[in-house]
């Protein structure tokens, strides 16, 4: 009755391990320690070119993180308003939000990036980084909006009624009662989106943003060491996403259940 724990499963990020998931956990361990092990092996026993690579790439990792974090922050704001718009009783706001979601979901992210960067770039000059962040958050805002909407709708009707009966209006009810509870429900899918977004930032390497992948390309095109370079890039992405998925899993358990079970 008082249970309203709903899990929403959206996203294509790395699987988030939980305590109960022994199988997943060992898969995570295998992947993680495998990746870290290979990384150390390559650096220690083949310092040329891997040590050089590991010194060359971190600038790109930093950019990747910068794009990811800026884009996710912006996408959360866009997503919150989109989600609220999607459940709005105002038909115009509702239509705008729904259309935005439909349009964004119907256009590949790479095309959106090109569009904002090159097509709109003909009219407005936007710095590379900013264009990348805007494009990513424009796209992910729509997905995030769906996550927010699902999270808000998963909250039991009785919560709303109890809040109304105390005298709260719709906005107060949303802010004080519904959203705080919805946030717990949407944490796992938001974590998933975060990881998916981090991986998708590799697309901005096509623009002039020197993220991890682009740094790799630069290194490879100078040294012609394609195999070594992309092995390293892949391992670094893998380690980052695995760490993130672990963090999301831990956060999920912490935020957890407010005394439930």
């Amino acid at each position, binding site marked *: *009755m*008082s249970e*309203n724990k709903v899990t929403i499963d959206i996203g294509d990020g790395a699987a988030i391990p939980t305590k109960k998931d022994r199988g997943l956990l060992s898969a995570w361990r295998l992947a993680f320690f495998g990746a870290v092990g290979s990384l150390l092996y390559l650096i220690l026993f083949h310092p040329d070119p891997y040590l050089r690579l590991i010194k060359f790439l971190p600038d790109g990792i930093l950019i990747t993180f910068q794009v990811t974090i800026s884009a996710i922050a912006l996408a959360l704001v866009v997503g919150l308003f989109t989600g609220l718009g999607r459940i709005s009783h105002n038909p115009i706001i509702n239509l705008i939000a729904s259309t935005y979601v439909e349009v964004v979901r119907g256009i590949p992210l790479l095309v959106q990036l090109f569009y904002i960067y090159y097509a709109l770039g003909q009219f407005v000059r936007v710095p590379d980084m900013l264009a990348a962040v805007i494009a990513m958050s424009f796209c992910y805002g729509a997905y995030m909006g769906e996550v927010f909407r699902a999270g808000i709708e998963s909250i039991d009707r009785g919560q709303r009624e*109890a809040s109304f*009966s*105390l005298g709260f209006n719709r906005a107060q009810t949303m802010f004080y009662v519904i959203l705080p*509870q919805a946030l717990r429900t949407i944490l796992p899918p938001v974590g998933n989106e975060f990881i998916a977004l981090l991986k998708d930032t590799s697309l901005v390497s096509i623009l002039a943003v020197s993220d991890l992948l682009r740094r790799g390309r630069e290194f490879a095109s100078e040294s012609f060491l394609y195999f070594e370079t992309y092995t390293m890039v892949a391992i670094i992405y893998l380690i980052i996403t695995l760490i993130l998925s672990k963090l999301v899993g831990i956060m999920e358990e912490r935020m957890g259940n407010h*005394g439930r079970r």
Partner: protein
Amino acid sequence: MAGADPIIRIRNVSKFFGQLRALDNVSLDILSGEKVVIIGPSGSGKSTLLRTINQLETIDAGSIAVDGQDLTDQAADINKIRMELGMVFQSFNLFHHKTVLHNLTLAPIKLKKIAKEDAEKIAIRLLEKVGIAEKRNCYPAQLSGGQQQRVAIARALAMNPKIMLFDEPTSALDPEMIGEVLDVMVNLAKEGMTMVVVTHEMGFAREVGDRVVFMDEGKIIETGSPEHFFQNPEHPRLRKFLEQIL
């Protein structure tokens, strides 16, 4: 109390759910301090009627006035009126993300702008009254159903309402917990609170009710004192209902 203006005045109210006539031309006056118990088979419209009083259900025809304010008036501030109307739900509906104490203090702090310390003082006094102050820092999920419902009553009281609405407050409870909730309600009645109670607890109706209202198929079939009601029920449908339930 004769001649006093009713604190709740329900006039010719009808409500439809699609084709279904949930309320059919219902009129009912409730006086300040009165305890009215609404009974009836499920689907009779008794919960719907209760929920129209604080506009959790809108009405399609008729009018409802609470404390002199017409709810159907466009200018009426429903949120203000709701502050005067405490409501207790069948499924408790405590805020899951707040502790017991904060369930009680949220609305007074945000809506009545009461200082946090004062709101907490009031909350603790109310929790003592419903016998659950020691659980103030628990989350709702850590409490039994009976405890949750007592907290829910205290939460409604924290807004210092003039009227308390109870929508089948014991129907979701295990039998051994019904008593603790009814005790709280009986005490509240003794303090003179105006109460409208939808319930299946006939013992409570008999002990506390000033007036019992029997509803069926969206209509009020019979109204009377509990003595009259349980000893000489007039309407055959009421007699049948009482036979089934007692």
